[in-house]
């Protein structure tokens, strides 16, 4: 969060070198005549400055006013306008420094005496500046806006050309250059009055006509005179960000009120975030979160367009997601109320997603890219908060086993809601409002439904188990490149005693992945993660490897390798036995290899009778069949084991996609999904 720049120090430095001030002895009159230089400082700094001037002059400002600037009695003739103006300015400074309403009232009283003298720009400026402050204090937005517009029109505009002329002649700092040389400060003061002071006094409506002035200020005015006000001391950065928001996707049709309100809410949100990082979900954090949430609600109330509502919901869902994530991470469940729900956000999303052709203009977007970015941004927040909230419920189901049934089903409902949204809008590859990351999120949601019922719900119904198996299959189709998911499907099937159905259920997803033109192009072109995908595809193409994927786990690799060794030993034994049987049957027995001699049966001495021969032939047939089976097993295991082991190296792809919503593979998942849908729809 960017804090408001403190300009006072720089202004004071400038003021010290100001011609009039430098040429004359310190006096309140001189300071008051140049008060436009420092009047926008924050109260604490303004107080400090006034105290320093008081030391220099030898009297505090209020004493100076009492002694030298009190209104003149009517019988003493008209008061000099300069004196009246100084009194108005002095009271305004006292008000700005300590918030005294009495001072403001006196300032207003004095400045109104200048009404017959408004031909002078300096008088016009202070007249509208003081009255704008009064309007702020009274919460009169219409008056405030009117005075700022008048100030601009009657004090600023007439000075612009003279100022440029003076600057060209290098006379802008000359003692007699007059009020025109104040122009850079007037820009700065108007910017601060509209953007900051209005917000400090809680004015959160009726500022929209001032958007025009704000745009003017940002267009070559504030920050354009670094020789007078250094950039670091000006409000240019904040002003630029406000204007960027006014014109950007997070606007409400250009409403300044909304933009400033959303800015304030975002600042409060940042503060709550900072507290969350340092204190966890402490009482203070929760309080800040409530305040931020209320500020977002104000912004929502001020929004008039779908664009504005989308901007608020996008930000507020981020806060909701952070709350759920923190609750899960910290294992606490504090009371946090919010007027926002995921369903509200989905309603807004639907308004955006159902736009046709150029109708996005009706929602207040100024260009199509901004509309698409905002729509996708809202979707991403909906998906993130859904997944975070569901994760939270699953973790609660573990920590509170007696409520596991309810919590796991809450999670399943959230995942299902997201899947409904996905089915409704991810209907074609070019769906504008659906981000690439939506497809992996759908995989996560589908898997989440399955796991909520099978791993977290204590007693899932048969219908829930059946739904879980279907969701596992959906998850596999959306993202087949997670090795562990195949085994999860087997586990689910085991719950129904249907593990033998595994291959039939898994094969469509595997074939879809191996036949995918999009995936093959991706791999051939060497796109990101191509090698990891190639390894997995190789496993999907081999039904034995697919079986291993379903029934083995990473920890069982050593066992699989040991079983291969055992098979090889069994093969050797069987071969030796077969050799011995052949010898026993006599005749053409081959010489016994030395290695087999230890297992060799005694060499036949006598011919076998008919019964013995039949028995030996039966044994030989059995041994031959066994050897053939062992050979097949060895061949299969020797072939699939390396494939399976290779797939282990692809582990973590899912986690990478989960943590990086901009991962390149999201785009591939999108293409694969729609490719599969198209081929399924083809006659």
């Amino acid at each position, binding site marked *: 969060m960017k804090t408001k720049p403190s300009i006072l120090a720089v202004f004071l430095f400038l003021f010290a070198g100001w011609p009039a001030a430098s040429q004359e002895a310190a006096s309140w009159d001189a300071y008051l005549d140049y008060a436009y230089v420092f009047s926008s400082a924050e109260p604490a700094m303004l107080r400090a400055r006034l105290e320093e001037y008081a030391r220099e002059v030898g009297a505090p400002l209020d004493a100076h006013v009492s002694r030298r600037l009190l209104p003149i009695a009517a019988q003493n003739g008209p008061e000099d306008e*300069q004196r009246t103006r100084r009194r108005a300015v002095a009271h305004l400074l006292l008000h700005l420094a300590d918030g005294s309403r009495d001072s403001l009232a006196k300032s207003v009283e004095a400045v109104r005496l200048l009404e017959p003298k408004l031909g*002078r*720009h*300096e008088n016009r400026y202070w007249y509208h500046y003081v009255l704008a402050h009064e309007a702020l204090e009274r919460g009169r937005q*219409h008056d405030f*806006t*009117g005075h700022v*517009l008048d100030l*601009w*029109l009657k004090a600023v*505009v*007439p*000075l*612009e*050309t*003279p100022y*440029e*002329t003076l600057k*060209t*002649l290098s*006379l802008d700092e*000359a*003692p*007699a*250059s*007059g*009020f*025109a040389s104040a122009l850079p400060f007037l820009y700065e003061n108007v910017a601060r009055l509209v953007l900051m002071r209005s917000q400090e006094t809680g004015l959160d409506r*009726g500022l*929209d*006509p001032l*958007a*025009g002035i704000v*745009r*003017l200020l940002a*267009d*070559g005015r504030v920050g354009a005179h670094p020789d007078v006000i250094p950039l670091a001391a000006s409000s240019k950065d904040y002003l630029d960000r406000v204007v960027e928001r006014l014109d950007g996707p997070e606007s*409400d*049709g*250009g*409403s300044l009120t909304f933009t400033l309100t959303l800015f304030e809410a975002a600042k409060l949100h940042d503060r709550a975030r900072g507290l969350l990082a340092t204190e966890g979900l402490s009482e203070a954090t929760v309080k800040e979160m409530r305040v931020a949430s209320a500020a977002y609600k104000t912004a929502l109330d001020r929004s*008039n*367009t779908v664009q504005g509502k989308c901007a608020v919901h996008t930000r507020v869902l981020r806060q909701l997601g952070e709350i759920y994530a923190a609750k899960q991470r910290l294992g606490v469940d504090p009371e946090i109320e919010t007027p926002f729900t995921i369903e509200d956000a989905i309603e807004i999303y639907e308004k955006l997603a159902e736009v046709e052709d150029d109708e996005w203009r009706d929602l*207040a977007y100024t260009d199509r890219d901004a509309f698409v970015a905002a729509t996708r941004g809202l979707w991403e927040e909906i998906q993130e908060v859904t997944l975070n909230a569901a994760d939270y419920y699953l973790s609660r189901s573990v920590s509170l086993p007696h409520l596991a049934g309810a919590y796991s089903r809450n999670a399943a409902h959230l995942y299902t809601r997201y899947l409904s949204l996905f089915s409704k809008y991810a209907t074609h590859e070019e769906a504008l409002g659906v981000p690439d990351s939506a497809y992996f999120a759908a995989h996560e949601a589908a898997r989440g439904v399955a796991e909520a019922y099978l791993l977290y719900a204590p007693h899932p119904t048969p219908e829930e188990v059946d739904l879980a198996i279907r969701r596992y299959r959906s998850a596999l189709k959306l993202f087949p490149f997670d090795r562990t998911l195949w085994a999860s499907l087997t586990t689910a099937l085991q719950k129904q005693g249907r593990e033998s159905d595994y291959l039939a259920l898994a094969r469509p997803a595997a074939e879809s992945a191996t036949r995918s033109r999009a995936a093959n192009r991706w791999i051939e072109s060497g796109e990101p993660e191509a090698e990891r995908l190639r390894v997995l595809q190789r496993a999907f193409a081999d039904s034995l490897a697919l079986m291993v994927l379903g029934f083995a786990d990473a920890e069982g690799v050593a066992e699989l390798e040991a079983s291969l060794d055992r098979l090889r030993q069994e093969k050797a034994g069987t071969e030796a036995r077969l050799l011995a049987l052949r010898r026993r049957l006599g005749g053409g027995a081959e010489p016994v290899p030395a290695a087999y001699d230890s297992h060799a049966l005694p060499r036949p001495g006598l011919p076998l009778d008919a019964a013995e021969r039949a028995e030996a032939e039966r044994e030989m047939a059995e041994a031959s069949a066994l050897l053939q089976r062992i050979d097949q097993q060895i061949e299969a295991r020797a072939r699939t084991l390396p494939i399976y082991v290779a797939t282990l190296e692809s582990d973590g792809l899912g986690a990478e996609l989960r943590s990086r919503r901009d991962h390149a593979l999201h785009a591939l998942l999108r293409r694969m999904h729609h490719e599969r849908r198209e081929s399924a729809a083809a006659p």
Partner: protein
Amino acid sequence: MRDRGLSVAVFLAIHVLACAGGRGLPPDVTLEDGVVESAVNAPLGGVSLAHRRMELERTQRDLRHFVVTLDSLQLRRDQNGLVLLKGFVDEYLGTHVDPMLDTDMHSKNPELASLDAGIRFLEAELLTRLRSPSRAQKVIDDLERLYEGREDMLVDYPIGKKSTLKKGLDVLSDRKWRG
């Protein structure tokens, strides 16, 4: 150029007097709005031309900002805001833009003609939004008069685009009655 030079000379003279007088004259004396007006019909060249161009460019940008803000208020049906800003824009046009354009000098200067025409288009556009079709028509008449024979000149109109002056006038005339 002569008038402008005179203005500057008067300004400098007053400045010297101010300095010589010790406390000086009230600072605003030298900087009344009349300085701008007196320069309107002056021949343009050198620094003065650069100044005038800068002034016209700034005015053109400012008018665009007003159009955008009015559109925004209209989009959100903010009637109070519209009333306030329309009043402001009306006065701004009357006190600042009209005196600036009250010359045929700009239209005759190749460096300023396009800017001048652009501002006039924007003024007419704003007047249309202010529901002042007769004033908008006057601006259109001025455009037709000042730029007669130069209908193929490119101007920054409609907002955000460039088109020929003739096409711009057609668009403007069409919009004038629709408000």
